[in-house]
């Protein structure tokens, strides 16, 4: 396409873009501006412009020609360079130029009193992050240090500062925050989220419900994930449930992402999902785990953990799932208790250690008396079993009232 473009055509396209840009800004048309700034959309008009720029090397001259262009030269000139580099696949350079343009844009944005350009700012913020990721991939493949995403992180912090004030622009702060989360999670510098979270949750200027739903869901998803890492299950449950309930039911991928963390959290507070849910969102890695919990099947749990270890480790829920073991033990003992009750209700509350050992043996879990005794002790200690253990007779004596208290949404005592 580019090869067929004449110089005149290229010049025409460039001036057309510049005209549109200046018009859009003067009319404060945020939606149109958004389109003009979006690199990664790779729309036909953008591609044509990029080709034109590459053909017509001296776009800066055009910008300088007219005052109405040159007043936005700081934004447009680097933006053109970013487009050119993007078109030829030099993402690191493209990022560099785009960040410059974005900086200038932020300056302008700061001066616009109304928030009409919020949409455009969103695009800039998004482009910054996406471009940085691509640039880092490019840098890494060239054996260089990927550092653009980090740079994007600090740029986004700057944008956050621009938005985090009184006025109509503040509703944009959460979007930037979410983009920051994405950056930090990708970089593995999750601890950096804390400062942003603090300002979102404590600053008076923000009313959380005032933010766009989209951002609220994203925010709750990420903060929920943080709580999972901290093993603060009630908080994680709250946040992820909020995200789930406000998430657009149509975007199944998002729901799946939320469920990926919500399910382990729910499991660890004793709430099991239906199989259909797991199947609907293709979360079958949890199927066996849920089954193991229902059956008290320790072997199945361990097997499931082993099978999906990599996945669980990567998503960070492995340690959470591993702790479900105690609930599986509880279920197993409860089953024994129920069977005993059917046989001999009067002595059902006394469970001999040998019986548990035997049950475990059936599950091919070789554990000796001491170990099982230890586990019973832990179960009692964690209040998963009510009662006491008599060491002399090697018998666990269960309480006659509610010997297996349900968690009911509360985490295991620790």
């Amino acid at each position, binding site marked *: 396409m580019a090869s067929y473009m004449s110089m005149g055509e290229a010049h025409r396209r460039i001036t057309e873009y510049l005209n549109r840009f200046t018009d859009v800004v003067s009319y404060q048309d945020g939606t149109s501006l958004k389109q003009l700034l979006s690199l990664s959309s790779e729309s036909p008009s953008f591609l044509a412009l990029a080709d034109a720029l590459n053909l017509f090397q001296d776009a800066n001259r055009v910008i300088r020609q007219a005052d109405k262009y040159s007043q936005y030269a700081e934004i447009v000139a680097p933006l053109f360079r970013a487009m050119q580099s993007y078109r030829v696949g030099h993402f690191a350079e493209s990022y560099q130029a785009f960040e410059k343009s974005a900086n200038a844009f932020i300056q302008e944005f700061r001066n616009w009193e109304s928030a009409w350009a919020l949409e455009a700012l969103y695009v800039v913020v998004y482009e910054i992050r996406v471009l940085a990721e691509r640039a880092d991939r490019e840098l890494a493949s060239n054996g260089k240090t990927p550092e653009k995403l980090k740079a994007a992180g600090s740029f986004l912090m700057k944008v956050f500062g621009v938005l985090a004030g009184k006025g109509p622009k503040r509703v944009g702060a959460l979007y930037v925050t979410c983009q920051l989360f994405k950056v930090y999670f990708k970089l593995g510098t999750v601890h950096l989220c804390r400062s942003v979270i603090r300002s979102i949750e404590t600053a008076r200027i923000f009313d959380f419900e005032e933010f766009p739903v989209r951002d609220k869901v994203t925010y709750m998803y990420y903060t929920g994930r943080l709580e999972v890492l901290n093993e603060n299950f009630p908080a994680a449950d709250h946040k992820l449930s909020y995200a789930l309930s406000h998430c657009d039911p149509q975007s199944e991928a998002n729901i799946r992402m939320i469920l990926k963390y919500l399910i382990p959290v729910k499991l660890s507070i004793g709430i099991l999902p239906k199989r259909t849910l797991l199947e609907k969102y293709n979360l079958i890695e949890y199927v066996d785990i849920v089954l193991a919990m229902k059956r008290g099947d320790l072997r199945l749990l361990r097997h499931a953990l082993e099978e999906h270890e990599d996945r669980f480790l990567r998503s960070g829920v492995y*340690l959470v799932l591993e*702790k479900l073991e105690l609930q599986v033990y509880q279920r197993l003992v409860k089953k024994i208790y129920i069977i005993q009750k059917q046989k001999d209700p009067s002595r059902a509350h006394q469970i001999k250690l040998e019986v548990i050992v035997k049950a475990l043996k059936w599950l091919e879990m070789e554990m000796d008396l001491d170990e099982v005794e230890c586990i019973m002790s832990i179960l009692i200690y964690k209040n998963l079993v009510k009662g006491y253990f008599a060491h002399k007779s090697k018998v666990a004596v269960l309480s006659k009232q509610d010997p297996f208290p349900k968690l009911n949404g509360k985490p295991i005592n620790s």
Partner: protein
Amino acid sequence: MQIHYIKYLPYIRKEEDASDAMMNQGVTDTITTLDPNSLEHHAVDSSHGQPPSYYAPSTAPESASWTMYGAVNESTGNKTYPTANFSHDQRPDPQSRNNQDGLTMASVSTGSTSGAANLEYANYATTTATYPNNDPYGYGNTAYAGYYGNYQQQPNQSYPQQQPNQSSQTYVQPSQTYGQPAGAYQSTGAPHQPISTFQNTGSYPGPASYSTTYYNPGDYQTSGGYQSGNYNTQTNSWNQGSYPSYGHQHQHQHQHQHQYPNYTTDSNAAYAAQNTPAPPLQYQQDYSKQWTDYYSQTEVTCAPGTENVSSTSAPNLVSPVPVPAPVVANAYSAPNSQQVASTPSIPSSWKPEPGLSELPSVQHSAPINNVHEGYWNQGNQGYQNYHVTPMQPGFQKPMDLNPVSGSFQNQQRPEGPQGPNVQYTASHQVAQNYLPPPPPPPPLMAPQTAVPFDSNRVINKVQIPTNPRISSNIPKNNNASTVGPTKPAYISVSLPNPNDNTSSHAPADSADKPGMLPKSLRGYVERALARCKDERQMAACQNVLKEVITKASSDGTLSTRDWDTEPLFPLPNTDTINNDSTPPSSLMKTRRSPSRRAKSRWEPLPEDKPVEKQSFFTPESVKSTGSIHSIERDKQFSTGKPDNKENKFNNLKFFLSNQKETNKSIFRPAKRQHIGDGKNTPNNNNNNDSSSDSDKEQSLTAYYAGAITLADSPEEKKRRENRSKRFEKNHGNRTTTYNKPKNISPGNLYTRRASVSLLANSNSNDDGASRAVEDIDWDSLTVKGTCQEIEKRYLRLTSAPDPATVRPEEVLEKALVMVQDSQKNYLYKCDQLKSIRQDLTVQRIRNELTVKVYETHARLAIEVGDMSEINQCQSQLRTLYAEGIKGCHMEFSAYNLLSVVLHSNNSRDLLSAMSRLSIEARKDEAVKHALAVRAAVTAGNYVSFFRLYKIAPNLNTCLMDLYVEKMRYAAVKCMTRSYRPTLPVAYVAQVLGFQSTEILNENDNNNTNGLDECTDWLKAHGASIVMDNSGEMMLDAKASMASLFMPEPDDAVSHGDASLAVNDFLTRSLS
């Protein structure tokens, strides 16, 4: 100060052998307990802790004089600071040395102040006292400066408080920050009478007053404003001519000064700049004045003993003051001489210091006592003697405080009794202590100093076979230390425009203290001397100065004449080369000094090429290194200021070009020296050999000074231009002048640095194309060791490594075997391994030997539970394994996993550690075991944990050991909650791994042992134990439930391992 510190921190951390927290702590501990002095110091410390207060009160009124002094002091301080920081590592001695070396006039002056402090403390001979103090002073440069200023202006009022305060402050700082220094203290402290004196200091503690005088930002500002104004203009004019870059720097400095209130560090830099111009003479005078003041103060506050001292010191001081330049030199020398005297003994004393942990010092203590008595006497004698010789060096090197000190030492050594030495050591320690606080500025310097320390240590410690090279290094080190980082600082200090300082000082001093030389005269003398490049010139200059001054005094114009405007007499021509040296350079150096030490430190070292070696010897080369450092410093300081970079570059260029020129000419002489050193030095290791060392030092210092001076002075511009030619012609002369017969031993460090600079120059070329430090091909500069000693003490590098003290790979292999076969304790091995690691790092050796060393160290550390070393080794091993170097990867993966599980237990760390495990790794026995342990810990499964504990492969047991207590406690808590009514203790003992159950079956004794142990443990944790009918011990679960508690470990040590406690450490290392 705090800011400085912070800046340093990264540095410290970077260092592979990060200073051991334990060491520091230990030091402090020792200080408190061992040294009465230290105790006092602590008290002081409390005051010290009030740095803000310092700043708050400003002595602004006297700002003019203050500024001068402060500038000088600061500059010195800066210089010393770096050393101090590095010295933290445990090498107080090097610091002191540096101080000595660097003790140009400025340092001397500081010395005097410090001396006052010392006097108070231990009644040390004033001179000796000053020396040690000097170092410390240098550290707290600004503070000192402030003191000085106060002293001068308000000698009477502020002095008493200030003096004590200063002493206390300095002391305090050391104790707090530097454990090592403390160690040194201990040694000295124990024997010392000083205790009483120290107590005095304790009483002194007018922390508040301290604070005011010390850091007052206000003072600084004022001083900055005053001085800077003058300075800047002066410097600018100088710079403008040939060195635009300099001008920039100056400006920067000025800015810094202005900023002072805000930036302490910056202020230092600025101060240094200001200081640079100040001539040595001024300092001396000031010192003397101060001293007198101090003394008077000390008399008031101090113990009777101190009073005496002070009185004596006062006279000394006074005498120097009235006397013209020579006199001053004497005064200076006196302190120096004391030091020198001490230096012979120093090695021993030093050793203790470096070894703080190791063996500080009986020697110290003994000497100290002696010192007290003999101090003054010696000092006096030394003065006389020194006057002749020391004076010259001092003057010659006016620019370089260090050289002077070095020369002094030399002279003193022969004369000075050991007693003085002792004092010296004490002072050194102090200095060390001080150093820590100042650290920020000195970073660059520090590395160098560290090296010297090492050498000193080696020398000092007879125990360790000293390498001839090492011994030779000692002098070198000193030189190097001074030259490298310190020198720049010093230079700046000493060099500081004599004019400004002198002028400002002169009025105040003259007014305040009769009999003193007018400040302006001092400035004049400084200026005159500053021009001198080498000792010969200095001597000649001094003679001329004497004439001038005597003439002036005879016709009564001494105090009336405007010395500031008095034209300088033409330089007597001793050496063309020497003539070139001018003071101005100091400014540049100071600027630079603050920045980039870290970088330099970490940069690969230059290789030993024949050419490079030659360069080593050349004084100029030294200079060049100094310049680089300074540049680096500048960068650091500059941060925040846009202009800095440019300046840096310019400076670099400048230096490089200078270096180049100098190097060319110098190389030949250097070579000769080098050879001589290499072979001659071996025997010099003993302390008694100090003379040769000191000579070397002197020569080196002289060189440095000359080099330093060269940098900035306007006069030098022309000289520089012509230099290359001169050098070619002057080769012979230079060698003779620079290299004194005994001076032959050049600092290898210097050479290296020089070589680096050379390289840089070669890159940049004379055309002036400035090359950033980053552009230098550091790879080509990597050190190649030549040391053949198998055993070597670890000293954290504070400067570029000296190839002569670095062991090549084959020697390191032997060293590793030696350590592995050694029957000595962990502390010894740790020390040795760290030195091996250091040598590997310095030579950039990364192969299987490296892995082996780290593995060996990690295993040893695991055995004794030294977590900090474990972590260091682990992180190194991780990168080494990642590079594909073979080793016991699996074994250490397991250790790594266990460390995370048992000690940090951060779920994110754990997840990443687990996800990093490869499939093969998961099949490995050790890794499997570690994973099982992890599972047991997360589940709280104590039975499984203790079973795994018993079957742990490799050293997994040792790591688990560290978690046993926690696990047992959690288990018992769980048991008391879940068991009813009772639980046999025997079962608890068995399940919780008290002794092994297997043995129980075979041997009843062991069983009961385990039972008893368990019973004791349970009791210690508040469990209630009852006897059942059969007489069996039972744990009463219900009763115990509420009474369980985790007792404070009675052997708790902050660093987590009682076996590493300092006291223990010291005694063990002695054995």
